[in-house]
């Protein structure tokens, strides 16, 4: 019996090792292809002086190779959407490839994964060697990808300068710099609003009318939203609560600091923050600040007044999804150009936006989820050229953002677009609805109702932001403080919910929270952050 078992185990092991060999053999066949590409590039660099630039030469080489083998090499681009691979993804990919075969000599495959699975799937693909060349770090996080070594140095051997030169036209040098980690550029930021208009209170227009709120008394801010104070908000909430007693007034989410304040969460978390980021690089504990106390007092008042759901702690639905359901009336987010359209879409009803905060650009605003190139990519040059096209080529950008013209959308006379006849957000075969993470949404068409020059408006909004963090571009690897970080995270989750949603008196709730944070090692964590920040500022 034992002998037989042993023989069987041996047999299985032999089979397994053969399987391993098969894989190794695969790798070997791939390797020459790689070096071949490398040498041909070098060769092309030599002749570049005559007619073709290295970039054009690389495209010509790929086309020549495709003519020989009858198959174009493929670049895989991965990002997430809300519902998983769209039904029309193959059609869009073939349209996209048909175009890029002409312009770049490659096939492009958009690999869209649903948001819940994206982080895990992407990590598996990156560590297992499955093909993915370009990916959005929205999900796994930029620093995680850099720390795990998934990302390639974009400037190695002049990759970006030679093959992605046009990126410099659309991404400013200081935004590139904000994505450097230890001086090395691993990612290109998506072009979007980096600045935020903090504390945009969004209220269903129908509820405002029902409660008889007079909007005429408010002036408008630069973005066209009603400027008001928290006292005004209190007043409106009281009127709404009285007019709609069976609806919950405020749809909560833990975003008072991220979207409602100008506190800079340097290093990517709020354990040690810059309270006055425009002027000072002093790391302090935001949970002891007057500003945070004010938020908690406000929510305590609202909770006492019955504006907040008793299930706020357990309800994991998004704030806008709850408003869409019709049981909630108001929420807070952060504003930007053309935000009213976006939030109205998310909430499924016309929303009115009130600007209660101020504009702010945090240290991580630019570098929160850049696009990266897989260090394992077989042909970084092709990948870089595809990345450049995603940022600069309207045809590529339109296909990636909106799908196929005439099928998913139609173009109006003023170049804005709308649904094709019979298509809407529910039955569209390609509607990722993640414009904000796309490389360059402004290279594509603008949706009807948004200003045609929304790209310029956003760029201006970013440039004109008066409160820019002094730590813009600071990144921090906290993996040496993983123990403290995990403990802090647990302490925060354990003691924050009650106090930030106003279920306990802030006096006692905040003390509890801070005691727990300090017991979890907040002091050491903050000191490490301060040290890293000082070192960064010294450079």
């Amino acid at each position: 019996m034992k002998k037989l078992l042993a023989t069987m185990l041996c047999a299985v092991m032999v089979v397994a090792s053969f399987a391993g060999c098969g894989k190794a053999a695969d790798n070997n066949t791939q390797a020459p292809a790689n070096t071949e590409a490398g040498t041909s590039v070098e060769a092309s660099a030599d002749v570049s002086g005559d007619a073709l630039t290295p970039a054009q030469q690389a495209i010509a080489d790929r086309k020549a190779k495709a003519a020989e083998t009858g198959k174009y090499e493929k670049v895989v681009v991965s990002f997430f959407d809300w519902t998983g691979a769209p039904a029309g993804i193959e059609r869009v990919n073939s349209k996209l490839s048909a175009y890029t075969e002409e312009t770049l000599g490659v096939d492009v495959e958009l690999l869209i994964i649903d948001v819940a699975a994206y982080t895990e799937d992407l990590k598996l693909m990156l560590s297992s060697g499955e093909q993915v060349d370009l990916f959005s770090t929205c999900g796994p996080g930029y620093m995680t990808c850099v720390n795990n070594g998934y990302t390639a140095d974009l400037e190695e051997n002049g990759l970006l300068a030679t093959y992605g030169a046009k990126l410099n036209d659309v991404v400013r040098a200081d935004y590139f710099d904000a994505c450097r980690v230890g001086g090395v550029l691993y990612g290109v930021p998506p072009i979007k609003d980096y600045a935020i208009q903090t504390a945009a209170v969004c209220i269903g227009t129908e509820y405002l009318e029902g409660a008889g709120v007079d909007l005429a008394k408010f002036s408008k801010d630069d973005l066209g939203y009603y400027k008001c104070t928290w006292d005004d908000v209190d007043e409106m909430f009281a009127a709404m609560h009285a007019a709609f007693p069976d609806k919950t007034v405020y749809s909560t989410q833990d975003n008072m600091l991220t979207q409602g304040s100008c506190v800079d969460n340097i290093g990517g978390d709020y354990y040690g923050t810059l309270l006055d980021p425009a002027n000072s690089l002093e790391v302090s504990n935001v949970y002891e600040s007057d500003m945070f106390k004010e938020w908690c007092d406000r929510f305590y008042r609202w909770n006492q007044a019955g504006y907040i759901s008793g299930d706020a702690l357990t309800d994991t639905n998004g704030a806008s999804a709850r408003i869409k359901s019709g049981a909630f009336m108001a929420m807070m987010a952060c504003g930007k150009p053309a935000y009213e359209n976006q939030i109205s879409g998310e909430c499924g009803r016309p929303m009115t936006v009130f600007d209660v905060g101020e504009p702010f650009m945090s240290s991580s605003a630019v570098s929160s989820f850049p696009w990266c190139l897989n260090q394992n990519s077989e042909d970084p040059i092709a990948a870089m050229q595809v990345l450049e096209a995603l940022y600069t080529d309207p045809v590529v950008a339109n296909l990636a953002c909106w799908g196929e013209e005439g099928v998913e959308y139609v173009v109006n006379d003023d170049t804005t677009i709308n649904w094709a006849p019979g298509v809407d957000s529910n039955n569209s075969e390609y509607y990722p609805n993640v414009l904000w993470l796309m490389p360059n949404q402004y290279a594509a068409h603008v949706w009807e109702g948004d200003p045609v020059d929304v790209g310029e408006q956003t760029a201006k909004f970013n440039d004109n932001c008066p409160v820019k963090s002094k730590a813009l571009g600071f990144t921090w690897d906290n993996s040496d403080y993983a123990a403290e970080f995990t403990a802090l995270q647990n302490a925060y989750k354990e003691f924050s919910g009650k106090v930030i949603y106003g279920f306990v008196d802030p006096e006692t709730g905040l003390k509890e929270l801070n005691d727990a944070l300090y017991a979890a090692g907040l002091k050491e964590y903050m000191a490490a952050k301060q040290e890293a920040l000082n070192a960064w500022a010294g450079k």
Partner: protein
Amino acid sequence: MKVKAESKKSLKKRIIRYIPLYVMALPGLIYLFINNYMPLPGLVLAFKKYNAKKGIFGSNNVGFKNFKYLFATKDAFIITRNTILYNLVFIIVNTVLAVFVAILLAEMTSKLKKVYQIIILLPFMISMVIVSYLVFGFLSNDNGYLNNTVMAALGKDPVQWYMEKKYWPFILTFVNAWKVIGYNCIIYLSTILGIDRGIYESASIDGAGKWMQIRKITIPLLRPTVIMMTLLAIGRIFYSDFGLFYQVPQNQGALFAVTNTIDTYVYRGLLELGDMSMSSAAGLYQSLVGFIFILTANLIVRKFEPESALF
């Protein structure tokens, strides 16, 4: 010489005779090998700082640094205590209840027996995510059955269930028992049905009542099965049912002190950090301690009741 040759021959014969059984076991063995043995070399990851560029074996060695976060904080005590105590309680409560239910079902002569069995088994088939919403249906603050109907009928004030730690050890034990008893009792039930009916008949001729039969026949004959099941459970004492501790309390921070176990702690920590090496370290730690536990428990059993020991 002759004897040896004969035994050899018989061994050969035996192998030939049992070939069908070996073939039947083969897929399972292959599965076991691929799933449980082939990844073993990957354990070195627990002692490295993983870097995709360098690969698993090429990454830098960092010694025991990855284990630090499991022990460095005060949470280490809480999560270890929770994991072990909950598992101990589950082992005891579930065994007692499962044996009880198995005996009830075995003694039952009603035609509805099969129906009862299916109803008891049903919760085991339900995903923990759905269970968590069933529980939420009872405990929700605004719309929950307990707060709106039961507490109101009793004339008591509603309770903020998801903020009160003290109830959760009972809620979790109850939910766990409700969910797994149906499955556990199948094994006990089949053991009981395998007991020779003749023993019961002669006992009843000798004047033993039902209660006496259960006490003197059923339970003693169930003992080896109970010991085996308990040993298996002890081997997993350092693991917790992730769904039960994460989904059922709705990942509620206020309840961490009584719901955080090693698995949920590692999940929460690493979800944020995304660090493969630390996940491996946590996994290695759990399996090592589980290994030691099961060896010790088996040793003790072997000392007192050798025939019931696993190995």
